[in-house]
């Protein structure tokens, strides 16, 4: 693989991995606090799956660089993370958490479907494993959105508030990385604009059928994944605290 392509691929893998890791951490904050025991287990399950997917992406990254995945996760500075801002937002209420997960699940469903055809074989193989779990997450959150949207006045109001807040954040998922065009030319990833269209075709009808109004402004909240909110620093302080006490400790 030529160095330009490899560099672009590393950027992409890190973005994929960081999205899953940070979302997983936010979902894990519900453990012990879920609205009902069954959902507590379900959200823990989703969080664990996303962490597993992050491990897959970090694994592909580290195969190419020789880095230690644990060091990437536990010793990296906030400014070096490449997740979209949506993932780092505090977990909010249940409507917010379910909607964020739903918007991400729909993105993963369309993105993974396209990645199955990736010309980079390790990527295509990883997708086969991840995709089944994502289809289930998508089913779970799709069901929740319908029930919250068509439930009570309060549940609909909370979900609409969440949508108004999350909509510009979700658009950042479809901002191509600065060098992503290299990967598109090589057939390694699909065109982000196409993914965006497929995503809109999935989520807009479902959100509308669930009684919600789609916000009119779909300008992405940020154009580069190096830009973060202060929430990420707090999240990482929490997540990295123990590992940073003694970075050389053997576990």
């Amino acid at each position, binding site marked *: 693989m030529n160095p330009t392509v490899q560099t672009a691929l590393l950027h992409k893998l890190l973005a994929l991995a960081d999205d899953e890791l940070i979302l997983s951490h936010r979902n894990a904050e519900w453990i012990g606090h879920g609205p009902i025991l069954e*959902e507590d287990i379900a959200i823990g*399950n989703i969080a664990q799956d996303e962490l597993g997917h992050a491990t897959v992406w970090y694994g592909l990254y580290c195969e190419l660089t020789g880095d230690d995945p644990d060091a990437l996760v536990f010793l990296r500075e906030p400014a070096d993370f490449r997740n979209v801002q949506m993932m780092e937002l505090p977990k909010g209420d249940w409507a917010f958490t379910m909607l964020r997960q739903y918007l991400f699940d729909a993105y993963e469903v369309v993105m993974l479907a396209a990645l199955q055809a990736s010309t980079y074989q390790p990527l295509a193989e990883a997708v086969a494993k991840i995709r089944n779990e994502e*289809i*289930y997450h998508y089913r779970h959150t799709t069901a929740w959105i319908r*029930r919250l949207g068509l439930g009570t006045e309060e549940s609909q109001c909370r979900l609409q508030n969440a949508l108004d807040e999350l909509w510009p954040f979700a658009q950042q998922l479809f901002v191509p990385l600065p060098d992503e065009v290299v990967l598109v030319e090589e057939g390694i990833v699909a065109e982000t604009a196409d993914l965006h269209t497929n995503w809109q075709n999935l989520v807009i009808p479902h959100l509308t059928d669930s009684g919600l109004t789609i916000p009119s402004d779909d300008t992405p909240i940020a154009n580069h994944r190096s830009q973060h909110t202060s929430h990420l620093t707090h999240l990482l302080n929490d997540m990295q605290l123990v590992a940073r006490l003694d970075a050389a400790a053997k576990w």
Partner: protein
Amino acid sequence: MPDTQWPRYEVFKQDSPKKRHTSVGTVHAPDAEMALLNARDVFVRRPSAVSIWVVPATAVFTITAEEMELNPNWHKLVTEEVPAKTYYIFAKQSQRRSMTYVEHVGEVEAKTAVQAIQKASQNRDFAPDDVFVWWAVPAAAVTRSEDDDIASMFAPAQDKTYRQQSYYGFVDPLRKSGK
């Protein structure tokens, strides 16, 4: 105190196409579709499974062998009478495994749940061994996972290694240091 939980659903899990659906426990859910998803998350994350059924707990009629013995007129118990329809029959025939409660042993056409159990209990094909507990459930009350669901609902669990917490030996170093 009033029950603030969602309604209860009985969950039946099938571990391979040749095995029977076995009762594994209950979940709370606002409706049958969510019950199916909750059942998957609670009961089939690690072990393998190929199918699950969920049934509203209120749709289950149950009677034990002891109750039948103590009340010889049990078959005259009044339950809702409806036009002849299919009932799923479940029976508990073993005391061996704690997880084994009742398992699916067949279907009968009957007007009521009591009549369904009466028919099943008179036919050794349903349960060749002694039965401790009978359940009857209208087939129409059963919500099932589909064959298409196997890949996303059940297959991922097969790749996941289940480890007891003792696998992670982080206690030992502390003990060794005498603290």
